[in-house]
């Protein structure tokens, strides 16, 4: 069964703090995607990770991929309120369909 797990599912953190969201997936896929969704809105692509050891950074967010461990991480550095959203990871095991994780709802408090 194809399955993508994320933890934590809910995260409340203070501004200025660092934290990591974990994404475990079930296949040997080497493609992993991160998306952001604001309440009531659509999904926005953040990162595409296409090989083992890939690391991408954009502002206060950094994503990495370890295909051997079937693990991707999304690291938040010095969080700010604008990062409050739900973050999804998704794998594309066959290069055609996508399997999404349940999402991590992040709240950054002042």
């Amino acid at each position, binding site marked *: 069964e194809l399955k*993508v797990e994320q933890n934590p599912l809910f995260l409340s953190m203070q501004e200025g703090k660092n934290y990591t969201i974990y994404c475990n997936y079930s296949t040997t896929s080497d*493609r992993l*995607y991160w*998306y952001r969704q604001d309440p009531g*809105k*659509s*999904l*926005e*692509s953040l990162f*595409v990770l*296409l090989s083992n050891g890939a690391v991408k950074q954009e502002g206060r967010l950094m994503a990495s991929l370890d295909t051997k461990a079937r693990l991707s991480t999304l690291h938040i550095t010095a969080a700010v309120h604008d990062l409050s959203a739900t973050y*999804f990871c*998704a794998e594309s095991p066959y*290069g*055609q*369909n*996508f*399997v*999404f*994780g*349940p*999402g991590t709802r992040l709240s950054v408090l002042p």
Partner: protein
Amino acid sequence: NAGVTQTPKFRVLKTGQSMTLLCAQDMNHEYMYWYRQDPGMGLRLIHYSVGEGTTAKGEVPDGYNVSRLKKQNFLLGLESAAPSQTSVYFCASSSQVAPQHFGDGTRLSIL
């Protein structure tokens, strides 16, 4: 740039009625997808298409049908709507490897 456009944005149906959701993309993408998102949950794939004239089942295809007669359009049909199909429906498109581009969603309520 339009990107991915979903029509309609909101709809209320009665149980047993039928309707079609339209998704149009102007990025010449080969792949198109229909998802549903229920409160507090991730996205679940209903059907997808890897090219004009082709469709495939996703994780939750029952009660839905799709067609991709033109490359830019992907239609999702509900033949006999049920309350369990109340959800937000997202269409997305992509080219190989690239991330998906999502539409704004269709909020569907079935009474």
